[in-house]
């Protein structure tokens, strides 16, 4: 569906190529061997075209099974498209020679950090992929120090990952990616196993990395409150992209988001109901403090009136 992209990405430092360029991609998971032939399974992705610019922060929103994780896995050659093409900095993901380079450029953090932590010490884990790539010891040391500092876990470097909390382990996973100096980080539902406060911390780390290091971020989530900081929100449903716009535009139609089986955060629902009841609460108020000051303003207006 052609939805107008309101905030133009031209303000970003635009290189000739988008960082990740997906053209008319379709993908179906291979059927299990014993699957009956007469039962068709809908493809996970159908004719997706989508791109992420250098330094852009994109949120990929959709409920379970909408295809968002599949799309994320296509971005660094974990899955290869059935039709169409995925290019990362111009490199086709089907080119096996380039796959290693592509994965160094685009890193994924998954839902469960335990699936990607392997070493017995935090700093060893962060150094792991650098060691595999054959970097010299002083370089490894410098990069590990920087990566740990970037996510604020220098003090945990000599601890064992299994002794850390979920939020801390996710930070170790991010540091492991940062050590490779990627251009893009994909967070695939990486907050869904965390408690609410660690979740907020995780979002602010991503925002900060985007801001300080000009990293591209693709944040895959089903939680509306996590997409507020994105420059662009891409909404998926049944393997298709149904909307691509700024958070303000996406949040303007809450009814539609409900239809897409997403949970509306209560403060937003309250603002919507007050607006329908005739209160002047601006649609652009999305964060908690914005909504609070809008409601406060409306209350004051009513009193003087």
């Amino acid at each position: 569906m052609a939805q107008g992209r309101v905030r133009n990405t031209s303000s970003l430092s635009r290189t000739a190529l988008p960082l990740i360029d997906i053209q008319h991609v379709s993908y179906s998971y291979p059927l299990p061997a014993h699957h009956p032939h007469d039962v068709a399974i809908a493809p996970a992705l159908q004719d997706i075209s989508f791109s992420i610019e250098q330094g852009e922060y994109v949120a990929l929103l959709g409920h379970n099974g909408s295809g968002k994780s599949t799309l994320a896995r296509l971005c660094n050659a974990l899955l290869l498209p059935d039709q169409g093409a995925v290019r990362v900095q111009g490199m086709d993901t089907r080119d096996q020679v380039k796959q290693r380079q592509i994965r160094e450029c685009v890193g994924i953090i998954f839902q469960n950090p335990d699936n990607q932590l392997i070493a017995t010490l935090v700093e060893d884990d962060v150094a792991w992929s650098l060691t595999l790539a054959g970097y010299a010891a002083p370089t490894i040391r410098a990069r590990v120090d920087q990566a740990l500092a970037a996510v604020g876990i220098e003090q945990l470097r000599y601890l064992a990952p299994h002794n850390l909390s979920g939020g801390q382990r996710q930070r170790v996973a991010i540091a492991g990616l940062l050590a490779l100096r990627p251009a893009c980080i994909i967070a695939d539902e990486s907050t869904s196993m965390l408690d609410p406060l660690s979740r907020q911390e995780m979002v602010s780390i991503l925002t900060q990395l985007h801001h300080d290091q000009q990293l591209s971020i693709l944040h895959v989530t089903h939680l509306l409150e996590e997409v507020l900081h994105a420059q662009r929100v891409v909404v998926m449903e049944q393997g298709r992209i149904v909307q691509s716009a700024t958070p303000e535009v996406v949040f303007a139609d809450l009814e539609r988001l409900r239809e897409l089986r997403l949970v509306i955060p209560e403060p937003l629902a309250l603002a919507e109901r007050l607006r329908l009841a005739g209160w002047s609460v601006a649609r652009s108020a999305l964060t908690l403090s914005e909504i609070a000051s809008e409601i406060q303003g409306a209350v004051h207006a009513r009193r003087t009136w």
Partner: protein
Amino acid sequence: MQDVHGSGGEAHSVQDAIIKVEHLSHRYDTGIQPQWTLRDINLTIERGRCCALIGFNGSGKSTLIQHFNGLLRPTEGRVVVDGIDVGRRGTDLRALRQRVGLLFQFPEAQLFESTVFADVAFGPRRMHLGRHEVRTRVQTALDLVGLPHGEYGWRAPFTLSGGQRRRVALAGILAMSPSVLILDEPSVGLDAEGRAEFYMYLRRVQREQHVTIILVSHDMTEVAMLAEWLFVLHHGQLVLQGSPRTVFAQTEELRSWHLAVPPLHELLHTLRQQGVAIPSDILTLDETFAFLIGGVCI
């Protein structure tokens, strides 16, 4: 949907206590130095109610619930569950565990049989019940969680969705007819739809089977929807208990215990700080809306 919160008088008068914990302390002796994970806990849980234990990682929630079905014994103090003293030597733990069902985190990972029916029947069969009794119990349990046995009984668990598999695990416990049901982070990893369904069936179980439900969670929104009474643990101590209304009013304290208040309550807190007079007993979205529309005085 009934209002589960009822009249939340803070004087916690318990008529019929199903769980009684007196001066419970627990120490893990593993590791270099022994660690106290629970210190002098006193609480009572009323029969047929739904209550919640909340606390940050490492606050002692899991240690506490493991006392309720005898996986751990108290180092000091006493735990009495449905008349059974958990700490006493010679206690029939088997009988205790049939009465107290414990649903771990990600219970769907524990499904192992080739059909849904066989998986749910595993517990009742171990109880040496007759064939007909097993069949009736399995069918009732599956119907109760919204997976009619005729349609789902013969399917393999891996053909179901995540939310459905979790309900199969719940049915496996219900088939043992427990009087207490403990759920450890029951909604983690489920999407909005799976979550809403799971809650709906959980409420039904509470209403129809009069099972006492104990939720362990750090998701306050979930707790606000389901529980009538909250216990807040911090560093192994019971720091606060009360109805959701009174507990959520303590925004600052909850933050200091690393707990996040539900977003709506945070909004109300901000509004109060900005001088909008919102009474402290407002809890739900409907109440907030009605109050604001009904006229606010500052």
